[in-house]
């Protein structure tokens, strides 16, 4: 048998990304499954390729879902997990951490590989180059179903890494608007991996500080505020000499986390540090106002919100905060006016509608209050508080059955409010009922 040989062709990352994109798009057009592998050595290269591919696919109208396989979640049985996924057969799934999830995850792939084909799933597995051989041997049936394996084995130099970081540090970062825990975990892992690969060199300090900043915020959002605080302290130390422009944001974030931890005085100090450096940041003034409100320093809080609104009169968060302070002061008309203005500038916030409902209820405008609470539940179906407020309203309206229903929904979403419900005087008349008791059990 004579062998035809061809010279090796060096392909750019973009060319290889094109290959993956073409395959996935072609499979989508033909309503066929696509099981692809992309292997890599450096997280920098992987992230760069991942980002390019995602952008390219989104340009073609595709939707991307990122999934990190974990033994702690249903994703460990990926074929079944994707079969039940609302985006089944529609989105393109980028899968990570397959081999970290261990033998169980791999077994499921081997034995349920047909699910992917039957459901016309388009899946890209990002697998470290050192792990792909093991995967092939432990899951040969699944491996036999692969479409293509594209390699991204380029190892960037330190200069390259910094260059790449300027592109990647805010990749997958959406400030504080992410709700999906999987997305947050993905963001955390990505940043940890990039940090681990970044050599401890002074020239990298600015990049490191930026990564630590977003890493801290994500940790806070997954209910790990202490971890977040630790990353922020590291970021502040690095940013002082290397990236002073970052300091106001870092101190502001530190204030937010300290507030979440109940350390309001320390939070105020952090906001003050931030304002000293960047007095023009409306967000920091507004955050400071929220803490002052919690401390019962209502006049100072109103002053802080006034600063924020002078810098940005359309700032919904500041208007919402101002409304809350007025509520505490019993100045309902002014509170309602502030909430209404906040909604004019941001009609998507469930929190503002909930507060608007509170003001209306306190003003005994019950139907309008109910409409506001309903709007809040519609805007954020996971948000429990408007359900509890609806229950209070129902009690005011002498509708105990409705109150029980609303409490049931609210406590299902946030069981930590049981104690609050148990001790609330508004629900005294329900306490003897078996349904109420069952709710609190």
């Amino acid at each position, binding site marked *: *048998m*004579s*062998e*035809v*040989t*061809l010279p090796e*062709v060096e392909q750019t990352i973009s060319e290889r990304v*094109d*290959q993956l994109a*073409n*395959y996935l798009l*072609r499979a989508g*057009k*033909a309503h*066929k*499954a696509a099981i692809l592998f992309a*292997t890599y050595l450096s997280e920098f290269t992987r992230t760069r390729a991942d980002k390019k591919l995602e952008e390219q696919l989104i340009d073609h109208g595709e939707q991307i879902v990122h999934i990190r396989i974990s033994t702690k979640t249903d994703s460990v049985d990926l074929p079944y997990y994707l079969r039940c996924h609302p985006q089944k057969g529609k989105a393109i799934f980028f899968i990570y951490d397959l081999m970290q999830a261990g033998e169980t995850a791999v*077994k*499921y792939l*081997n*034995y*349920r590989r*047909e699910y992917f*084909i039957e459901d016309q799933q388009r899946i890209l597995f990002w697998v470290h*180059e050192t792990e*792909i*051989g093991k995967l*092939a*041997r432990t899951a*040969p*049936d699944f*491996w*036999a*179903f*692969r*479409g*293509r*394996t594209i*390699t991204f084995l380029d190892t960037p130099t330190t200069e390259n890494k910094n260059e790449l970081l300027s592109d990647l540090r805010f990749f997958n970062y959406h400030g504080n608007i992410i709700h999906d825990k999987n997305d947050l975990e993905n963001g955390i892992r990505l940043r940890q991996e990039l940090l681990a690969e970044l050599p401890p060199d002074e020239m990298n300090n600015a990049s490191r500080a930026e990564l630590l900043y977003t890493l801290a915020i994500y940790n806070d959002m997954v209910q790990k505020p202490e971890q977040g605080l630790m990353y922020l302290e590291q970021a502040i130390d690095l940013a002082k000499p290397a990236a002073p422009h970052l300091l106001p944001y870092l101190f502001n974030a530190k204030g937010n986390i300290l507030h979440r931890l109940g350390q309001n005085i320390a939070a105020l100090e952090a906001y003050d540090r931030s304002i000293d450096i960047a007095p023009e940041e409306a967000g920091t003034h507004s955050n400071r106002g929220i803490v002052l409100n919690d401390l019962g320093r209502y006049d100072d809080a109103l002053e802080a919100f006034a600063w924020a609104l002078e810098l940005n009169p359309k700032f919904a968060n500041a208007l919402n905060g101002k409304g809350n302070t007025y509520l505490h002061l019993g100045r309902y008309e002014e509170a309602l006016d502030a909430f209404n203005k906040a909604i004019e500038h941001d009609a998507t916030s469930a929190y503002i509608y909930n507060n608007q409902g509170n003001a209306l209820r306190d003003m005994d405008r019950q139907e309008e209050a109910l409409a506001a609470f309903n709007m809040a539940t519609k805007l954020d179906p996971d948000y429990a508080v408007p359900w509890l407020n609806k229950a209070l309203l129902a009690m005011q309206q002498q509708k105990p059955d409705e109150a029980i229903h609303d409490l049931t929904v609210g406590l299902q979403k946030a069981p930590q409010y049981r104690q609050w419900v148990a001790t609330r005087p508004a629900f005294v008349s329900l306490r003897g009922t078996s349904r109420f008791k069952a709710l609190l059990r």
Partner: protein
Amino acid sequence: MNEQRATNLDDVWINFDPYTPLTANSNFYVERPGKPLLDLRRALLRSRRLSRPPKYYLSGHRGAGKSTEMNRLAMDEDIRDQFIVIHYSIRDFADVNDLDQVDVLFTIGAQLFLQYTDKEHGYGKKLPKELLDELEGMRGQITSRLRMTNKEISAQGEAGLRAYFLNVLLKSKQEEVSRREIRQELQPSITDWLRQVNLIAAAITKQEGKPPLVMIDDLDKPPFTTAKTIFHEYATLLEQPAFPIVYTVPIAVFFTREFVTISQGRQFLPSIKLFERHNPNQRWEAGFHTMRQFALKRMDVNLIEMEALDEAAKLSGGVMRDMARLIQLAVDHALNNGRSKIVVEDVVRSASELRSDFRRMLSGEDIEVLRHVRSSQELTNPEQLAPLLYISAAIEYVNDESWVDVHPIVLPLLE
């Protein structure tokens, strides 16, 4: 599936989907040289004359076309003339991740009952009342053990038994706890269950004047250790049903010494031979012709250079799925290079991509074993070779004799 011969490369890409086995009447089907399953077909047709209904164990490489051939055999007119064919994939009714001999035997009985009585997808026939009464006993034990209380299951007669079998199969497939409970219930009385299975088969035979033939696909998918337990330790149990059965088994089963019991029923679907044994430059034209046919039934001849087609055939090692994958990848290369026809370079680049996959899988020790295989082409150390056959780095061929060779894509890695 729309099985039109492709007239452009985009459609070629679709037609060379390596994932899905062909249906029995597919336009894309290609008859293999020597019709390797003819032996099995002949043996099955003769089996009615045997005093002991035979069991056959079909193996073959991944992607060699086992499921396609099983689909065709199940629809073969002569076979259907002689048997009530009960054909299913074990994947649909059990968890291959966690499978044992009890699960296999339970699915056989359940599928006999369900497919024979199913009006929509099966034969839509009735079974005698005495048999239904007989089956009620076992039903009672399992339904109470699994605490199954739904209305349909409580119904008497055939409808109740149908609901019962469907529910138990579903629970056994999806719920680990139920699976264990079913096994605990059936294991001690497995001979009773086998007696009931044989009663169902006897009733079918009496009513139809021909016995059932059960064909179970995808039994080659469980882990090798599981397959070893089922087909070695419980081989005699699998031989018990009083009707012919075709079991699929992992190829590596026959490369270990323990499988004496089932080796008599061995049936093998080999890869297609492309070169003569001991003479790697001597092409076997019949094999190349088959592989060309495989491609040209799916694509217009103008879409690929003949030289490229032969190169793909050669590099496929005669494994159908690898041929499909090579062509599909070659389409990608051709389109990326702005071509509307596949050329040799596209095929070679595809092979190179597949070779990288093998490079990741094979250890230095594996390479040594493969070098030996290449020079001897013999199964001198089957146990050492089994894992390499399992990942298709080595391929078994059968013509007048059995022999092995290294997958052509892997060959450059031996240098």
